[in-house]
């Protein structure tokens, strides 16, 4: 397809090649756009293990006036169905209160992300979020299982990593801090846990965060555009977002998935300040290049070593082996070929959608055009006027 407007060159000339990983589409054609979205969904579903549920959901949509909203909801439902099964196999002890707080926080984070044009990767203080993004471990247990049986297997028994996304905060008996005096910390006689990992250390998504984590006041940094790999320091075999347990009516993983796929749609995509995504992508590329520096390029004529890692068509490829098991370890954490490819493809989806939408701005729905007009990104603000 003719790229026409090379809008992505405004940020970084290599972004067109990145976007090509997700494929191109004609945003003026509803059918073309839907076919592209289905391809993105299939990629996500294959990687996360709900391809069969997704295929069944898409098949049900056939014959209806599907539309992207129907597809998105069907995809999320397929994801939830699979997540229930995965929880049965991988989840540590159930905690409804954590699910509740995460869900409430994500709801607020979505609003903040839309206001600040930073939905792709959110960065805010826990003190701006409900209940300071902390939960009580003795929270109420769920009356029923929300999505399939919930196992009580230990993380080590299931092969997954220990969940380190929370830190225990015992505040009782301590002298009041400035946070507590300002009402920013949890009550001093309570024992609470952080609902999210506070990723202030350097990661594959960003450098060290300027604000340190202190008690219940901590930076909440979530890369929802690459969900379920929401933390740049946790790009291993197991995506942390898949470990966000659910309990009716709380389902933070579903909410995060909805947010991620909304970035494939015009309004949310064009609300996002792409400069932030570009910065995150460039950081990801530079920091992963450090640990992947010696990985050879795949050549069609070989020779290829079984089990070895190669760069192939912009992604990582493990010859005759599992991308989930091929991993590198650097100062910013573990990096599996599986996570690398997944994250890169999510960047690609965002940029491919952005490119397609900006190619035909006059065909965009009014909500999307309004979002575009409010976008602070100088690369896009003048586009609707130019196009018209």
């Amino acid at each position, binding site marked *: 397809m003719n790229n026409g407007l090379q809008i992505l060159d405004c940020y970084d000339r290599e972004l067109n090649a990145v976007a090509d990983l997700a494929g191109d589409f004609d945003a003026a054609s509803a059918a073309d756009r839907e076919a592209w979205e289905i391809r993105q969904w299939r990629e996500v579903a294959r990687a996360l293990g709900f391809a069969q549920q997704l295929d069944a959901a898409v098949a049900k949509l056939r014959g209806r006036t599907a539309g992207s909203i129907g597809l998105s909801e069907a995809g999320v439902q397929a994801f939830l169905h*699979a997540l229930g099964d995965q929880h049965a*196999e*991988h989840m540590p002890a159930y905690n409804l209160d954590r699910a509740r707080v995460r869900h409430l926080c994500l709801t607020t984070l979505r609003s903040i992300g839309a206001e600040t044009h930073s939905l792709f990767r959110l960065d805010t203080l826990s003190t701006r979020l409900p209940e300071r993004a902390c939960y009580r471990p003795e929270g109420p247990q769920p009356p029923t299982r929300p999505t399939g049986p919930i196992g009580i297997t230990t993380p080590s028994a299931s*092969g997954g990593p220990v969940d380190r996304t929370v830190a225990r905060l015992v505040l009782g008996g301590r002298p009041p801090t400035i946070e507590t005096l300002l009402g920013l910390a949890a009550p001093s006689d309570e024992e609470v846990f952080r609902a999210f990992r506070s990723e202030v250390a350097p990661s594959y998504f960003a450098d060290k965060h300027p604000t340190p984590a202190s008690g219940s006041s901590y930076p909440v940094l979530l890369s929802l555009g690459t969900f379920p790999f929401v933390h740049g320091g946790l790009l291993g075999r197991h995506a942390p977002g898949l470990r966000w347990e659910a309990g009716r009516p709380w389902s933070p993983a579903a909410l995060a998935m909805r947010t991620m796929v909304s970035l494939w749609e015009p309004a949310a995509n064009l609300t996002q300040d792409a400069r932030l995504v570009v910065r995150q992508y460039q950081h990801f590329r530079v920091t992963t290049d*450090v640990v992947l520096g010696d990985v050879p390029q795949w050549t069609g004529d070989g020779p290829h070593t*079984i089990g070895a890692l190669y760069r192939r068509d912009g992604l990582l490829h493990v010859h*005759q*082996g599992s991308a*989930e098991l091929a991993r*590198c370890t650097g100062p910013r954490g573990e990096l599996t070929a599986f996570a690398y490819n997944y994250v890169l493809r999510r960047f690609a989806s965002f940029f491919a959608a952005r490119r397609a939408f900006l190619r035909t701005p006059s065909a965009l729905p009014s909500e999307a055009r309004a979002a575009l007009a409010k976008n602070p990104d100088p690369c896009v603000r003048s586009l609707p006027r130019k196009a018209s």
Partner: protein
Amino acid sequence: MMRANVIGGLGLGIAAGAAITAGAVYLYKRSGKAIATDAAVPLPASDEEPTSDSTDDPAPEKGKSEDAWSLLPLPSDDDVDGDLETNWGSTPRDLRPLFLLAEEVTGIVGAGRILSVISFGESRWRPEAHNGAGDTKLDRNERDASQNAYEAAWKRNPPLTFGAESASFGSGGLFGMLSPYFLWTGVNELRGRALLAAEHPRVIFLPRVSAFVACVYLQRLLDHYRVDDHLDIKAGWASPGYLREPPEGGRGGDGHQRVRAKFSQHAAEVGIDLDDLSTIPKRLSTKSWPGVQVVFDRLLGTVGVA
């Protein structure tokens, strides 16, 4: 050559401040009797010397089909019909289609998940796992085992193009197979013809080839031995002798019990419920077994038929 090929490919290089561990070799303890052709199904006799031992011609560097097979991709979701999401535990998603394809081509319902647990125990799902390439006691034992296996059977089996290499190879691959028996797979069913006899033992690292051999071995265990439950499959994998009654065999003995317990532990570690009847029947059945040649063709195409 072999060591460089396998181990060399595992070290992916060290970048500044980064240790790359993509191909850690998982060593595992195995009985040298694994993959043995069993006495219950006599092998055809052959007085021919192995090709590589009996000729002065320089041995080829590669087996007949190694290059072609190495280009075959791992099976994908599109290659299988069954459920890739239920009761697979932590089996890597990109390897599930291989295990499930093995189940579907053999008609042995439930085999996929059993093979995944076996592979976890034998190699931690690493196709390049190799015992015999180093100089540890385990490596030496595995080389001794493959040497003994070769010497015990070369006279009655068809010659191997890479007989000497096979004898000194040890064991490896996804399922921890002992090299000579690996290359003689199918010799009983195909009346003296071994589909891998012209191959270098390093084809053991190719997942599809390894899966083919695992399928045949599983079928032989189920058809020719007393397999009481799924744990007995792994006992037979370690040594068919564990499935025979004493005093000839070790059924009920410490070794038999130990292997069974370990398999059960591996299943728990992986997260595959061996008692989940919706995905694994109580007893695996070979009633739909299509034959060695069909399994070979469906896993490896028609490339490389000996």
